[in-house]
């Protein structure tokens, strides 16, 4: 198990290094980092100081190493809009984002998985067809359309819920619902097919031949096996949530990370964008690492395999 975790961690570090390199390459390709990180209106002496400090006249590989070292000291540059360290601006926004993404995640898992499993256990029934149909609608409706429709109904027509801002818990309801609908659909669909696949396996027949009741076959044999593929999807869900937050926070004027990224991209506040990129990538990689470990815990076959693939 230790070997397994170590190999997964090595992979996580590799991915992070690739994200940093990606940011480095994009930054170098797009122009002079001094003007990018300090802004086009920065005074010449500040630019010169920056150049000297980061050795921009050094060979590229030296610059790359310096860049990596800079990141490891959590120095992501200064926001050109707010003249504050980019990292501080990003960290300040994280709680607001968690306030809507965590409940959305719980809804996705709490509704999506049971619905999918129920559908798989009652194949071809009305409930199954209902779950399939709703889940297809769930993930084909774009979140921004759904958000606007919800606003139109619950804020404009009925006046029950506020359409934007962050003043009370009611403000969070529409963002959370919007964020979770697509994920619930995907989760339900995937859980259904994972469960159907498991139910066709020979060990399910063995469990039945043993004399177990159908209930025990499902709970003790089918579900633990189906949970293995389902857990992998949870990793992807984290990424989908962050991407979804960008749209949803913008629509509902929710002051989180997602809205920050959209506004800083629009303003070309590149220090903040770069910092966000790395923070989001780190959280994604961390989430995937947790998923991998959970995967290893659920499936003993993976644990004993030394290979990383």
């Amino acid at each position, binding site marked *: 198990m230790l070997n397994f975790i170590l*190999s997964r961690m090595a992979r996580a570090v590799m991915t992070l290094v690739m994200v940093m390199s990606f940011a480095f390459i994009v930054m170098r390709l797009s122009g002079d980092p001094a003007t990018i990180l300090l802004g086009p209106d920065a005074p010449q002496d500040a630019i010169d100081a920056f150049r000297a400090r980061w050795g921009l006249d050094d060979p590229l590989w030296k610059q790359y190493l310096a860049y990596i070292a800079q990141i490891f000291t959590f120095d992501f540059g200064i926001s050109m809009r707010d003249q504050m360290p980019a990292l501080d601006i990003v960290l300040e926004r994280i709680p607001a984002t968690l306030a809507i993404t965590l409940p959305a995640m719980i809804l996705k898992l709490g509704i999506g998985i049971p619905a999918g499993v129920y559908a798989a256990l009652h194949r071809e029934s009305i409930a199954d067809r209902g779950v399939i149909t709703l889940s297809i609608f769930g993930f084909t409706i774009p979140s921004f359309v759904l958000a606007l429709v919800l606003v139109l109904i619950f804020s404009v027509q009925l006046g029950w819920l506020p359409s934007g801002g962050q003043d009370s818990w009611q403000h969070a309801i529409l963002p959370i619902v919007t964020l979770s609908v697509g994920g619930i659909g995907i989760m339900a669909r995937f859980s259904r097919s994972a469960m159907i696949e498991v139910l066709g396996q020979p060990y399910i027949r063995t469990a039945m031949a043993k004399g177990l009741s159908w209930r025990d076959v499902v709970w003790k044999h089918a579900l633990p096996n189906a949970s293995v593929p389902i857990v992998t999807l949870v990793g992807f869900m984290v990424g989908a949530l962050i991407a979804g937050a960008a749209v949803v926070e913008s629509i509902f004027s929710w002051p989180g990370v997602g809205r920050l990224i959209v506004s800083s991209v629009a303003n070309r506040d590149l220090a903040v964008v770069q910092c966000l990129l790395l923070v989001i990538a780190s959280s994604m990689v961390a989430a995937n690492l947790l998923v991998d470990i959970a995967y290893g815990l659920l499936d003993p076959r993976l644990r004993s395999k030394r*290979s*990383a693939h």
Partner: protein
Amino acid sequence: MTPILEARGLVQQYATGRSLFGKPPSMRAVDGVDLAVREGEILGIVGESGSGKSTLGRMLLGLETPFAGEVRWRGQPMPAPRTDMWRRLRAQMQLIFQDPLAALDRRMTIAAQIAEPLEIHGLMKGAEAAERVAELMARVGLRPDQADRYPHELSGGQRQRVVISRALAMRPKFLVCDEPVSALDVSIQAQVVNLLRDLQEQEGLTMVFISHDLKVVHNICNRVAVMYLGRVVEEGPSGEVFGDPRHPYTRALVSSIPKAGRGLTDRIILQGEPPNPAMRPPGCAFHPRCAIADAACAGEIPELSGHRGRLTACLKQRAIIPATAA
């Protein structure tokens, strides 16, 4: 007779995983095999899973480059896989797989697939090729109306006939059959075995026949090599090896075959774990399961050598022979 194909000191090993620290663990599938295939013979290779028999077959054909040792075809070294020389040589040697459905492209008609080697090697085209395909199909007992069928529309035995006729298209000299009848039903097995025997006689083919089924190997092969954990433990004419097995493993293998109409009496039942190439025991690889092994067997790897006109790799050979002679 001079051997048409010769293998010397063949070793193949694969990495079994990746290690963060140090050398990745490896597994020896084939561990030092010398083998000579004579022109016109059918050589059987028998062994259980993990014995390395399929890997050996692929190396004999040059489909895999051995980790150590070499294969010589008509005295010449085998060219490296996927080179032009190697591709040209494919016209002379062919492989027949265990699973004919997997070996056929399910989106091509069987006639197109039988014609494919002719196209690849630029031998013939159009009407001439069509004629050759018809001839090949008749040769293996396929009906002309099956030419436009797709593989999944045929039965298992018919699919194997397609694979065989495709292999024969270039009039090869040498054929390796890897478990060609294992996936077939008993009644169909006999049809395909007979077909292979007829073809071998009429076309003067040289064949290596790899199988775990001793009865089929005995029926089709002149000579047989028994493998255990990557090494040949006994070799000889198939009548002798199966009629009077000398190596304790061959004896157990022969004895383990249930005979129709006879019960479970006087059988040697091997104890212990099945062979695992990733955990090869020191010395004679068979010693942990061997009834007559002693301390010396764990210390030395026995070489395949002659004992009373028979080739075996067993340190206890001298002990066995007086016992059977007495």
